[in-house]
């Protein structure tokens, strides 16, 4: 299977921040959700993937093109929308559509029209009068209607009301029905990531904490409630990401579930009361706090 | 006045109102040729006009200045109408291309030719004519000086092309800045209010210049000319698609014409009392107001009359309309040449007038037939 993108050993340094030794691959036709706090390096990573930034070390290859050298050829097939992107306030959406349409021969006018109806946008309205949600949807329209092979979205649902969020997620889901198209989107909203992504990547402090199949993530992690006295050595167990005591009640967050684990806990005097699956948000927070790989 | 917009390259107009406006322009053109021819026999212009004839008549002034007050306002109103018409058919880019082809290029080519022809004819007349006009006499003295005073170049009778280009640029500016709805909002006030306001809108133009108002021949735009002709152009532009607004004026047509006539008599009376220094001063308020009312109401009345009576296709008027542009570009050098030649021929002024006008129109129309109508020139000046 071809890779939508493949980055190997990539580093990028700024005066106050550094992205370090990132190795990541997205197979074609897959969706990757990039989760990280503000300042984790998500935008920097996306810039590297669009060729807007050149790595200080390592290699970046997107849709078979080496970046940043072949950024023009790559950007022809990439749709990129970021949270810090704005449209020209005094110009209408129609003006922007015409600009993009003339650059991209693959522009699908019928699809653009249907997106405009679905997003409830007016072509003749100056974009300066758009709300945040309308602006995000307009940027998404300008990306989607040119039928990109790779969609890179930086915080596409941040700040949207529930209706707008649903509209955006539905449009993304529609893109995903085409198995040749790939999507990487970053988000704080782990619920959106859980809903759409095939692969989940955690980024924190410029480092890649984890990247794995969503099912594996969700399958590997458990929250276990036990009763008893936790031995000191418990926190050194490699499969435990977090151990929390509240008197005799102990909460364990397990990063690599093993069916034999309850028996092992019983051996050290802990009585397992409950075993629950963990949500992505909980997994991420735990991973960050644990300061290591998921 | 010339048919600049419905040139050969545009599909034949079918709307009756387009016929009416086209015919109005043809008649205004004819009026322009006759007006320029008549100035040679005007007592008021005797001291200034190069071809001023030995015989003149106050009747010429009585009629000529009425033409002068309405023909150019009417031309610019119709020009404004057709500007919007062009924009709706071809967009702003199409309008600009049209203006370059039909106005800018003919202006740039015709202007030096007209200037050279008229300068040469006037110098020749200054040297050879036995019965020179006061202007030619003065010119003869100037030319005899070792250091002849330098006259700044002007646009001559082609000034209307210059202002048409200027107004086209102003249309683009107004649309780009979002101001194009101003006169449309004025029209929503209704025909009666428009008729009352129009003289007030053009009054500043008359106040800022002398009386009778001259041709704005300077190469620099004149505030007074923009203030006088601009509102007519803007009104015409706004009237496109809204000519029905003027329907209510139909029953006021004869009262308007009669009022204009009365005001014009008052204006003539004021003119007759002008002293020598008054010709050089800006018009007093009363004179300016009279002129503004005559120009405003007279133009509206002619427009309403034209829409009523000239809406049917007429072969003669259509021909005049097609030949108008070429005729108007060419007429003044031809007219001057003929009238310089007639200065030494003793004729009654009406005969001289008819001869000069007839020859001028014949030369213009013949040259149109031979050089323009069936050649590529018709796309530019046909």
């Amino acid at each position: 299977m071809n890779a939508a993108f493949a980055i190997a050993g990539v580093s990028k340094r700024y005066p106050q921040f550094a992205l370090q030794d990132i190795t990541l691959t997205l197979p074609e036709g897959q969706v990757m959700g990039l989760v990280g706090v503000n300042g984790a390096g998500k935008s920097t990573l996306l810039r590297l993937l669009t060729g807007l930034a050149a790595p200080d070390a390592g290699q970046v290859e997107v849709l078979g093109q080496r970046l940043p050298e072949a950024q023009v050829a790559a950007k022809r097939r990439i749709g990129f929308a970021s949270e810090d992107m704005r449209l020209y306030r005094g110009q209408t959406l129609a003006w922007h559509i015409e600009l993009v349409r003339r650059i991209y021969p693959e522009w699908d006018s019928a699809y653009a029209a249907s997106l405009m109806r679905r997003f409830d946008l007016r072509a003749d309205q100056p974009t300066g009068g758009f709300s945040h949600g309308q602006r995000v949807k307009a940027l998404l329209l300008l990306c989607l209607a040119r039928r990109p092979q790779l969609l890179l979205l930086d915080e596409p649902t941040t700040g949207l009301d529930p209706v707008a969020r649903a509209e955006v997620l539905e449009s993304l889901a529609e893109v995903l029905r085409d198995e040749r198209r790939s999507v990487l989107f970053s988000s704080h909203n782990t619920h959106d990531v859980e809903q759409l992504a095939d692969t989940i990547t955690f980024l924190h402090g410029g480092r890649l904490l984890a990247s794995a199949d969503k099912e594996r993530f969700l399958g590997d992690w458990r929250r276990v409630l036990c009763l008893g006295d936790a031995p000191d050595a418990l926190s050194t167990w490699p499969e435990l990401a977090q151990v929390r005591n509240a008197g005799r009640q102990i909460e364990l967050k397990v990063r690599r579930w093993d069916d034999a684990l309850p028996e092992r806990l019983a051996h050290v005097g802990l009585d397992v009361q409950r075993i629950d699956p963990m949500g992505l948000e909980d997994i991420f927070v735990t991973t960050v706090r644990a300061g290591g790989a998921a | 006045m010339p048919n600049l917009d419905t040139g050969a390259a545009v599909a034949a107009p079918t709307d009756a109102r387009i016929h009416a406006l086209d015919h109005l322009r043809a008649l205004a053109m004819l009026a322009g040729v006759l007006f320029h021819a008549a100035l040679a026999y005007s007592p008021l212009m005797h001291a200034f006009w190069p071809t001023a004839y030995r015989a003149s008549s106050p009747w010429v002034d009585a009629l000529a200045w009425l033409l002068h007050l309405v023909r150019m306002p009417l031309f610019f109103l119709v020009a404004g109408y057709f500007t919007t018409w062009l924009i709706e058919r071809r967009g702003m880019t199409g309008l600009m291309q049209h203006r370059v082809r039909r106005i800018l290029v003919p202006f740039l080519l015709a202007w030096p030719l007209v200037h050279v022809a008229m300068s040469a004819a006037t110098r020749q007349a200054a040297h050879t004519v036995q019965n020179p006009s006061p202007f030619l006499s003065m010119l003869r003295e100037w030319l005899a000086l070792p250091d002849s005073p330098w006259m700044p170049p002007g646009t001559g009778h082609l000034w209307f092309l210059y202002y048409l280009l200027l107004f086209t640029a102003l249309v683009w500016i107004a649309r780009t800045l979002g101001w194009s709805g101003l006169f449309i909002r004025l029209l929503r006030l209704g025909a009666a209010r428009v008729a009352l306001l129009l003289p007030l809108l053009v009054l500043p133009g008359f106040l800022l210049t002398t009386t009778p108002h001259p041709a704005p021949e300077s190469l620099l735009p004149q505030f007074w000319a923009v203030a006088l002709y601009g509102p007519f152009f803007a009104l015409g532009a706004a009237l496109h698609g809204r000519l029905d607004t003027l329907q209510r004026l139909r029953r006021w047509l004869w009262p308007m014409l009669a009022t204009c006539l009365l005001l014009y008599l008052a204006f003539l009376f004021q003119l007759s009392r002008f002293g020598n220094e008054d010709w050089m001063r800006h018009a007093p308020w009363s004179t300016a107001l009279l002129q503004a009312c005559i120009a405003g109401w007279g133009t509206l009345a002619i427009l309403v009359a034209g829409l009523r009576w000239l809406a049917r296709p007429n072969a003669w008027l259509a021909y005049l309309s097609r030949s108008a542009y070429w005729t108007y570009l060419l007429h003044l050098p031809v007219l001057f040449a003929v009238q310089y030649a007639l200065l030494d021929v003793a004729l009654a002024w009406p005969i001289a007038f008819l001869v000069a006008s007839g020859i001028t129109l014949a030369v213009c129309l013949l040259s149109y037939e031979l050089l323009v109508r069936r050649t590529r020139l018709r796309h530019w000046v046909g």
Partner: protein
Amino acid sequence: MNRELNWPTIRLLIVKDWQLFQKQLAAYLLAAFVALAFLGLAKPWAFYIGSLLLIIILVAVACFAISTSLLTERKEQTLAFVMSLPVSPLDFTVAKLVGNLATFLVPFVIIGLCTALVIFSTPLPNGLMVLTTLVFAHILLAYCVSLAVAMRIESEGWNTFVMIASMVMINPFLMAIGQLHGVSGVARGDAITWSGPVLAILSAQLVLSLSCLAFAAWWNGRKPAFY
């Protein structure tokens, strides 16, 4: 790195900047017509108003063309949108340089022609063309310097300083060239004479202008990526 220029997209970006400039152009043209009409009144007070207005328009064109196309684009974050299109830093540099030059030179040339028209068609001495040409060349140089700086430095404060400083330098420039016989001696007469020092100054202004633009093109175009 692929140094080939993506001309179709560059052309579209230039057209884009030109379209964004239309409202400003309309305002400048309107102001220019008003200035010319003041000059057309042929009165001393009107002449001063008209010529002052023409200079103001020229300086405004120089400053706002750069401000709108570069500084405002960064501030209003529309730059990110442009960078996401299939353009390399070199394409972007070329588009910005050419687009900016177009938006500046069109009103610059129009006003220059109008000024020449005023000089030749009014009683003003034709020799003023020498002084006028030097002033226009200074404004062109100041513009090129400001453009080169704006393409490199993101700080709005520094860019504003360079724009103002370069335009204000016109005062000492006028004082200096006023000492030249080739300027002051010619200004009152009808003959337009280009003396050696005047031609040297003019050549230096043009060479410096072109050098600024060439340097800006080279410096910005060699970046492999935008960030």
